[in-house]
């Protein structure tokens, strides 16, 4: 068996106000998998994401990325390996130009000059945004900003792409275009989403996080078909979808 890209064991975390967000999360993601993380609001999805690259530190439990323990001494390498795309591209794109923004991550890794330039072009090419390189982020459409946000983490050549609500606020064509790009990347992915059809379209495997625990883990289609499991976790397919027809 290969080394898991993500190997989380018994993660427990409480916020400073005492609210427990994770109460023993176990999750393995293997290279090449695309996994959807489903669950109601407040289930701890974003908290889990912030543990993957060491922004939050668990009270107990361990987490390894490609075999490397998430700990202070490896943070630079961990953050290279885990590429997180945040929900609001305006939070992710903070530099005055697209070029500077995509260069930010690899520059922090020490790349310079031609090597850095090549990395920026490679990442923008992968999402089809190469011609926007000298634009300023606030002049891009929302869908374009989301694609550039993905490029900013691709530029670090991560081992896993973690996406927080990738389809949020996109129009239908934008959703489809993003799905095409994500499929073409052919990477290990963890996708936090409320958009169940999107999870079904992109992720063969899904886990349900609720009350700070993984309560279900299996093929996405089977999880979405399980009416009782879905109802117990405040998950519903949108109007017009018939679970038995999936």
């Amino acid at each position: 068996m290969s080394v898991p890209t993500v190997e989380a064991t018994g993660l427990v975390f409480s916020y400073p106000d005492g609210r427990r967000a994770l109460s023993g999360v176990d999750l393995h993601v293997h290279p090449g998998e695309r996994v959807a993380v489903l669950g109601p609001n407040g289930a701890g999805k974003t908290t889990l994401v912030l543990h993957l690259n060491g922004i939050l530190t668990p009270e107990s439990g361990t987490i390894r990325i490609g075999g490397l323990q998430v700990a202070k001494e490896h943070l630079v390498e961990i953050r290279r390996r885990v590429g997180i795309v945040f929900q609001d591209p305006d939070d992710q794109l903070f530099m005055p130009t697209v070029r500077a923004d995509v260069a930010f991550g690899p520059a922090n890794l020490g790349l310079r000059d031609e090597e850095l330039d090549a990395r920026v072009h490679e990442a923008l090419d992968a999402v089809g945004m190469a011609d926007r390189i000298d634009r300023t982020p606030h002049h891009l459409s929302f869908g374009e900003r989301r694609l550039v946000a993905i490029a900013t983490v691709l530029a670090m050549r991560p081992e896993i792409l973690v996406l927080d609500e990738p389809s949020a606020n996109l129009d239908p064509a934008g959703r489809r275009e993003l799905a095409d790009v994500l499929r073409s990347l052919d990477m290990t992915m963890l996708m936090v989403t409320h958009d169940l059809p999107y999870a079904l379209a992109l992720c063969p495997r899904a886990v349900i996080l609720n009350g700070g625990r993984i309560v279900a883990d299996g093929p996405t289609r089977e999880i979405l078909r399980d009416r009782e499991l879905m109802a117990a976790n405040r998950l519903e397919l949108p109007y017009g979808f018939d679970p038995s027809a999936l």
Partner: protein
Amino acid sequence: MAGGHVHALYRHGTSPLHRMQPEVKLAATLLFVVAVVAAPREAFWAFGAYAAIVIGLMITARLPAGFVGRRLLIEIPFLLFAVFLPFVGGGERTDVAFLSLSVEGLWAAWNILAKATLGASASIVLAATTQVPEILTGLSRLRAPKAIVAIMGFMVRYLDVVIGELNRMRIALRSRGYAPRRLGEAGALAATAGTLFIRSYERGERVYLAMMARGYAGSMPDLDERGGHAVQWAAASGFAAAAATITATAWVLR
């Protein structure tokens, strides 16, 4: 998106001034403004010479007079102050039409008017031929403190986002019938300002998370070390030297 106003000062073009490296333009503009400010106010010919230089630059950059004129309106609030000086100034007085004006006040007003207009014009030429990100690049190449350049960069990047949020809040207030007439009704505006502050603060925290997630470790990466071309520096030095020579000559001839 409420975009564009950050770039409203820029005028697209391909003139030599547009193509000049930003740090060269920044340095030359700064030196020019210093020379103008240092000039003795009695030397009218010197101000004429400065004006000729600036107008020459505007022609080179193909800036229409109307464009520059509208941008110059920015100095009106400052000039209003200057208008009062001849009336309130002390010392020797002179009669112009039916008004008794202070000679010292007239000189002070002229000094402000001439220097502010020249300084603003030079800045307009800079802003009209240099995009905002380029100005930031120029500042960092001139070795401006990194933290300051980074803060300016964030300001440029997020100004539109914050203004967009403010506009949405204003529309939400108006949609619920808010139309303040009395001072007592202004409370909602104060609350709006407070909310905007908190939202911006929270966004700052999220941006910081996103920066950390991409390996930020306390200092912005230094990306642009390339300097301007020697020819451009020479041209800019000539320009700054001309301004400095005018100023020096004006002092000597005084």
